[in-house]
């Protein structure tokens, strides 16, 4: 069985490999054979192992000679290559072009991403290239063209690169929906996913190919991996909390010095800015040799860094997950991970960025930022050795993505509801979509939801006389095209150099909330430079170079990633070993004195015991509990416990969580010895209690922000939009309140709740954690001062709250406290003698009153607030 490819041409791939004196790997031959037979599938292999040529040459084998093509009229659109990052598109294009040139095939390669210029777009609207490289968002945009069906008529194969990056999120769902449409047009479409290491490959395969099936191909190429830890000299001087880890600067410099090229991975963008600056301060001679790379920097800046990496011109690059994916930078010899690796798969991915040159091993070195991360490093080594790799699961029927898709399809030539419903249900995430939800989504795009049926002034999509649903308004059509996508970010400002008679070079973007807290003349650190804010105008922050020392560092509101279950379990095992007096590894021996302090003041947690600590301070009554479930689960657990206790007495809790545990703090007395055990072991319906605690807190409101944006409730604006467009921008928190008060049955509210349960609180993991906690022995200790485990929670600034007190009582108490305050009586985390803590210097914040031209009041703060945001 050879399909359209005849035997004589089936060897294109083999011929090209032979011409380069390459020997194909077995997995490449397997993919070629599968594609030859028209099969779809998922290829799982590490980066840089030849995944691209497995699928690309498979496609050329099958299609290159089956299609008419000439030099001036290349083959019609045959293959779509989906990439999660537009930064990868250009490199992919180069890789795909190479065999075309050498085999003399008349195929054209084109890019279509958010960066594609208007000339290229116009050319593509006349004729699409033979192979088009694009992102999920741009693919959906292409499908909104009225002639989409015709344009994609010749499509035969679709490849999803880095499928593991899309699988677990809404971008992946968006792609599923686009795939459903392409499959309806061409039932024979061949689909291949390329994926790095995942704990659940069969699920990744099923979601991609649903409702069909295909072949799972394992790339057997495993590279040797070396994982080690950069340890501080003495643990006594090492901080108990903090996330910067700058105390490790000297050994990090020594490591960078010793290697040709090093990637320094950090967990946040602000952390990368600080490390870059610290490295430059310590080694001024490295100016020009080290660089910074993160997602908020301007494209040109990132391109320059990536080119420098490729050519080996850079000694080190401080980066974030922005360099997790992508082409291989051959010169990279070492990878350093500052702070917790958070997950095994992520650590392996980052490790894989090094050691691509032949004969080299991949090497990743963990750099702890505080004491307990030393233990985490030991745990990571064990989890990696035992290959305990995390799973990723596709979201279940997110309605916001569906609503957006309905409008997109109404633009793309219109839709008939019955046909579209059948199509949508072929996407894995919507396979069980209830009729009620479908009817609701239709009503929502037509009238804005059931409650709005009386309003003739609102309509996005309308059926015409023949029953075809379309978007009648050109203005709304344009607006929808601008907001396609599921990545939600805060309103951000472009940062540009100030120049007379126009703007200077663009440096990147920062969140509006950060700039709003600065006044002209204030300094801040961005793009590795010390900058002075000149003025803010038309969503642009103009800056000059600055000198001096004092500078703010922007914080970006990216979600903080929780420690994975796999890593958390490995960590508890390390504590358990310490409790049994086993100090085997280098890390454990170093940490022994600190673990001894924890043991002496309280106890060590273990696999079989659940450690709890209670403390009375002048701030109030604290409970510290250490389930080791990751920060999301702890947030859910903390809300649950707070709610259950608050049912028995009126009380207000302030909640702090980290990856190891949680803290509940009350200003009024709580008898934790009495209250904790019943709250933990309650047989009451868990889901009911979690939902109730959710309604008492603020989480659902925050989650609504993303949903509101994707469903088109909140419009983030045309680029360069003028002030008048701002008149229709309200914060999603305000929307949330209005919906909850006036349209409580709106399904988007249900979705907000469901997503909080599933994503923010990870209800499945929460249930498992709670079940485990109920099996464990509760080991409750009264402590006299915060222990090494408690301290990081005590100084955590970001807090949730939950209250069962009457509002009037809370106001009365707080107003009275304010009256009684003789001096600055607020909480002070005065570190005790034995405790070192690394802190960012607190800057005085001055909210401002003036509004014209000058920065506004922090939007971020208002957005997160119960009473909603407002722009007067």
């Amino acid at each position: 069985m050879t399909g359209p490819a005849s035997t004589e041409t089936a060897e294109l791939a083999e011929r090209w490999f032979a011409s380069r004196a390459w020997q194909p790997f077995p997995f490449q031959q397997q993919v070629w054979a599968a594609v030859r037979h028209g099969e779809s599938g998922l290829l799982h292999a590490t980066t840089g192992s030849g995944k691209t040529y497995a699928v690309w040459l498979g496609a050329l084998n099958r299609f290159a000679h089956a299609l008419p093509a000439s030099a001036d009229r290349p083959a019609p659109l045959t293959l779509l290559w989906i990439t999660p990052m537009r930064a990868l598109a250009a490199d992919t294009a180069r890789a795909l072009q190479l065999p075309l040139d050498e085999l003399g095939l008349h195929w054209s390669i084109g890019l279509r991403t958010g960066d594609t210029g208007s000339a290229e777009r116009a050319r593509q609207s006349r004729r699409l290239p033979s192979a088009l490289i694009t992102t999920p968002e741009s693919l959906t945009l292409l499908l909104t063209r009225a002639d989409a069906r015709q344009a994609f008529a010749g499509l035969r194969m679709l490849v999803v690169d880095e499928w593991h990056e899309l699988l677990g999120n809404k971008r992946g769902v968006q792609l599923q929906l686009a795939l459903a449409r392409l499959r309806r047009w061409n039932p024979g479409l061949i689909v291949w996913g390329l994926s790095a290491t995942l704990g659940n490959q069969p699920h990744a395969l099923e979601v991609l190919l649903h409702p069909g099936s295909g072949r799972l191909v394992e790339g057997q190429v495993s590279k040797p991996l070396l994982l080690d830890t950069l340890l501080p000299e003495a643990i006594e001087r090492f901080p108990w909390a903090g996330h910067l880890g700058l105390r490790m600067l000297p050994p990090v410099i020594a490591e960078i010095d010793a290697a040709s090229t090093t990637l320094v991975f950090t967990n946040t963008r602000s952390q990368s800015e600080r490390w870059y600056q610290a490295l430059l301060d310590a080694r001024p001679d490295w100016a020009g040799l080290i660089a910074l790379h993160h997602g908020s920097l301007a494209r040109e800046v990132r391109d320059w860094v990536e080119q420098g990496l490729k050519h080996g011109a850079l000694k080190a690059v401080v980066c974030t997950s922005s360099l997790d994916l992508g082409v291989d930078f051959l010169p990279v010899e070492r990878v350093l991970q500052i702070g917790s690796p958070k997950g095994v798969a992520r650590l392996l991915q980052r490790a894989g960025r090094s050691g691509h040159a032949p004969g080299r091993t991949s090497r990743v070195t963990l750099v702890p930022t505080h004491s307990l991360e030393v233990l985490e490093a030991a745990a990571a080594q064990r989890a990696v050795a035992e290959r305990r790799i995390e799973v990723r699961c596709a979201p279940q029927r997110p309605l916001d993505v569906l609503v957006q898709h309905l409008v997109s399809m109404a633009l793309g030539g219109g839709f008939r509801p019955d046909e579209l419903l059948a199509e949508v249900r072929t996407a894995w995430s919507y396979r069980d979509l209830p009729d009620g939800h479908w009817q609701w989504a239709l009503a929502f795009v037509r009238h804005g939801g059931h409650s709005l049926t009386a309003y003739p002034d609102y309509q996005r999509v309308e059926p015409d006389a023949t029953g075809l649903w379309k978007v009648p308004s050109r203005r709304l059509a344009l607006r929808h095209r601008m907001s396609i996508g599921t990545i939600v970010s805060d309103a951000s400002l472009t940062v540009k150099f100030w120049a007379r008679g126009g703007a200077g070079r663009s440096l990147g973007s920062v969140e509006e909330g950060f700039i709003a807290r600065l006044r002209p003349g204030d300094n801040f650190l961005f793009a590795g430079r010390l900058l002075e804010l000149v003025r803010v105008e038309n969503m642009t922050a103009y800056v000059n170079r600055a000198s001096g020392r004092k500078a703010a560092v922007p914080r970006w509101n990216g979600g903080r990633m929780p420690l994975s279950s796999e890593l958390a379990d490995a960590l508890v095992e390390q504590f358990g070993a310490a409790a049994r007096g086993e100090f085997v590894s280098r890390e454990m021996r170093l940490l022994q004195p600190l673990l001894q302090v924890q043991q002496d003041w309280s106890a060590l947690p273990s696999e079989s015991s659940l450690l709890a600590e209670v403390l009375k301070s002048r701030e109030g009554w604290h409970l510290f509990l250490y389930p080791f479930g990751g920060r999301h689960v702890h947030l859910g657990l903390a809300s649950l416990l707070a709610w259950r206790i608050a049912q028995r007495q009126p009380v207000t809790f302030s909640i702090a969580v980290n990856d190891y545990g949680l803290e509940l703090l009350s200003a009024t007395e709580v008898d934790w010895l009495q209250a904790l055990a019943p709250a933990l072991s309650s047989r009451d319906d868990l889901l009911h209690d979690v939902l109730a605690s959710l309604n008492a807190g603020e989480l659902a409101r925050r989650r609504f922000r993303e949903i509101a944006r994707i469903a088109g409730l909140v419009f983030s604006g045309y680029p360069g939009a003028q002030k008048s467009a701002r008149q229709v921008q309200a914060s999603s928190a305000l929307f949330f309140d209005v919906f909850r008060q006036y349209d409580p049955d709106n399904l988007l509210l249900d979705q907000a709740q469901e997503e909080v349960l599933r994503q923010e609180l990870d209800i499945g993991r929460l249930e498992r954690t709670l079940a485990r906690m109920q099996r464990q022995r509760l080991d409750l200790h009264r402590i006299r001062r915060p222990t090494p485990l408690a301290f990081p929670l005590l100084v955590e600034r970001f807090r949730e709250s939950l209250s069962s007190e009457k509002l009037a009582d809370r106001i009365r108490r707080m107003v009275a406290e304010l009256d009684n305050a003789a001096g600055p009586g607020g909480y002070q985390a005065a570190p005790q003698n034995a405790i070192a803590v690394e802190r960012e210097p607190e800057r005085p914040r001055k909210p401002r009153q003036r509004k014209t031209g000058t920065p506004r009041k922090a939007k971020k703060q208002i957005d997160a607030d119960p009473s909603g945001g407002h722009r007067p």
Partner: protein
Amino acid sequence: MSDYLPIELAGSELWLLADKAIYWPEQRALLIADIHFGKAAAYRRLGQPVPHGTTENNLRRLDALLARYACRQLIFLGDFLHAPESQVPATLARLAEWRARQAQLAVTLIRGNHDRRAGDPPAALAITVIDEPLLQGPFALQHEPAPHPTHHVIAGHLHPAFRLQGRGRQSLRLPCFCIGERLSLLPAFGSFTGAMDIATEDRWRIYLVGDGNVWPLARG
């Protein structure tokens, strides 16, 4: 505690109302700032679905105040209509019904920044529309909180709110009145409006509103 709190300002007695308005007994006047009628309708017109009910809610609260406090005049301190798109038949019809119910009341609107874009309310509503300031007794009634050379300014525009911080790291954000030496602010009345934290270093006397009460804040 009660739902209003009398204070003395520039030699006159004013009642700060828990429902975010000021009653001036001497003039039998009710002062309302930033009601933003038709904001939800404007959103809907521009393609963003917002449930309805906010206009009804605003009018219901307004009627309740007018029933409880004997009023001869009602003065809007700006931002009566939210946007040009707010002038939709449904919203205007509701306003007309309301005006018919309150026919004997003298209603004045001091134009705010939103009113300048949205346009004046229809003449049928019988609202006297003027530019700021409206000088009445010792006060200059305005929308924007700009100082006045001779009169104590009462203004809106900023939608002030205050964040209470308490022991046990608790915090609570509530709309508030800000009373100053020469300038005082009302909270926003509208039910579909947000609020803005006021600067803590400013020397206001703060009166919070929450849970049906007005709470004076004693601060340095």
